């Protein structure tokens, strides 16, 4: 378990996170959920050291683990084709052609191969999202953080990506932020529900029925609406 203790963050006078603590299971998928503006993105950016903090547990986490935060704004190489971009990324992470091909086959369900000849600037949001997902799995990180990874994905790709998360073949510790609760019980081991800046609930997926029920309960949602 990766422990985060007493995390606090303010912008000016406003407290975004107020002494929150939680733990993340290693080699499993954890979802962070909560209403808009509650601090989900801030939390994951602090965990990945994009937002600097003096918190000892975050510092220790970053010292011991390589954490990569993935966001589509990192796709700055607009003029490269998806193929060239993946080659660039594989070279950065010392992956050879065979390893890249293997990974592409593994992610075949996301239909990445079909847009490989297209330039990044011509890709749709969903296609960019798929590239970012693949980029994460190509990296040599210990912990992957995806901020709203289902945004822009079509229904089929979303389902397939959730299946990939469920299998977690490469044993990454994965953290995602999402508003998408469909099948959340299938692919996550734990859910961190952020109610406000200081109240968070940590729910472990032991029983899928009660797990989802608890998430909806803490978020004050009607389960039927989100089926």
């Amino acid at each position, binding site marked *: 378990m990766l422990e985060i203790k007493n995390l606090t963050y303010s912008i000016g006078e406003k407290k975004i996170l107020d002494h929150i603590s939680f733990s993340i299971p290693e080699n499993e998928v954890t979802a962070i959920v909560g209403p808009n503006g509650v601090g989900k993105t801030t939390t994951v950016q602090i965990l990945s050291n*994009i937002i600097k903090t003096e918190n000892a547990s975050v510092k220790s986490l970053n010292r011991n683990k390589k954490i990569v935060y993935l966001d589509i704004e990192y796709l700055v190489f607009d003029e490269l084709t998806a193929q060239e971009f993946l080659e*660039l990324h594989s070279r950065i992470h010392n992956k050879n052609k065979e390893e890249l091909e293997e990974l592409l086959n593994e992610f075949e369900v996301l239909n990445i191969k079909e847009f490989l000849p297209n330039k990044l600037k011509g890709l749709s949001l969903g296609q960019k999202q798929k590239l970012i997902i693949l980029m994460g799995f190509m990296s040599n990180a210990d912990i992957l953080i995806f901020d709203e990874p289902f945004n822009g994905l079509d229904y089929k790709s979303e389902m397939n990506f959730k299946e990939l998360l469920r299998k977690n073949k490469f044993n990454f510790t994965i953290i995602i932020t999402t508003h998408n609760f469909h099948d959340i019980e299938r692919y996550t081991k734990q859910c961190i529900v952020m109610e406000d800046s200081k109240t968070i609930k940590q729910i472990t997926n032991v029983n899928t029925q009660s797990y989802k029920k608890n998430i909806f309960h803490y978020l004050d949602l009607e389960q039927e609406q989100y089926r």
Partner: protein
Amino acid sequence: MSYVRIFFLIAINALRAYQSNLYEKFEKILPEFKYLAKYYIYFYAASNILLLGIILLLDPSQNVHIHRILNDYKWEILIAKYLMELFVIINLLRFEVPKGFKKVYGLIPSIFYVITANFKNVYTWILIQFIYYTFLDKQLFLILFILSCIIIYLSLFAKISEFQYILNILKMARLMFVILLSYQIIQEVSQKAGFSFASASNKIEVLLFLWVAFLLILLISNYFLLRYIKATTRIFQEKQLIHYFKLFFIPFIFLTLIQITSSLFVFISNIEESLIIISYLISSLFVKIKFIDFLTMETYGYYLFYLKSLDKKIQSEFMMNINLNNFFLLLPVLLFHLCYLILNQQYIYAFLLMLVYILDIKADELIILITRKILKKSELPNLFIHTKKGLSNVLLIAFVPSAIISILVNSSSIKSSSLATTMLLLVSVILFCVSILAHYWRKSFFDELHK
């Protein structure tokens, strides 16, 4: 990890981005030649490599003038080096990469990315090193080069959000360097015995003074333009200042050429003042074309319909803003030319130039009022509006300098000062007439808006 291939892919991305931007520009300005865009990059690369080669092959010890400048102005040359490097470093620090980028791509690829995305700045830095390698003492250059490398490395590392205070300090340092450089040059030149601006032997000093004036005016306009240029349908932003300063090199090149050629040819020397006025009018034409969004009431496009429903005072205020923008944006160009005339002790011509400056803006206003047309905003950059806005410059080039040149050519006996006084009177009368005409046109325009 093969850094060569990584750098190659990142460079390919930058090259394609540059070509794509160029293609868009060609398509907008010269649609018939847009296919030349892909060849331009090769021309650009070849000419820049050639330039670096020529600089390396130069031998400054062979040229007496350069040798003298290198000896007399050692400190100024060193200060100028840091000033130029500072501009490059500030631009590099200003360039933002997404937070966490370095962690995703790694340090070296991130540096490759910043270098290729800012290759013009990096090229400028390399060019500075080449120039100083050729002209400076090699040991001194080596020490300065190591220092420069450390600074450039740090600026590639730094992120703007984390180093905002460094950026502010560097901006202050830039100001200090300009003041120091100006002080050094003025002190060095004024200490020389028997120095007089007008004497032919001091052309190099006049050019140095022009350079100082250029830097000072650049620095002053850096502060006052952002503050005083009024918003039209657009806001005058800091990034537009860079485009504005690039235009500033046009009068600098013109004036340097005039200064050099007038010392070589008597004929050019006779018509020097007319050439200054032409230089001013051409330079201001470029400013007008580039910043047309801030300089004509047609900038408002459909917004003029709203003006009709506004209070008359607010209507006048909008028009006044456009007028002030004209005066402010052309002022640095005027000041630069005035400096040249004052350095050459041509005070009457300096006054004449000021009148031409006002006349040009007034004539512009009159032409726009007479031919007013409410445009769509998208139609603004079309050729018609640009032609209208430049018409006053063309008319004035055809009238003022041509008149001076033709009188000088036809009667060699006429004195330069009496000619300038005659022109002064003539331009004053024209200015008076144009102002009255513009006033009545403006009045009728507002009355029409009120109907």
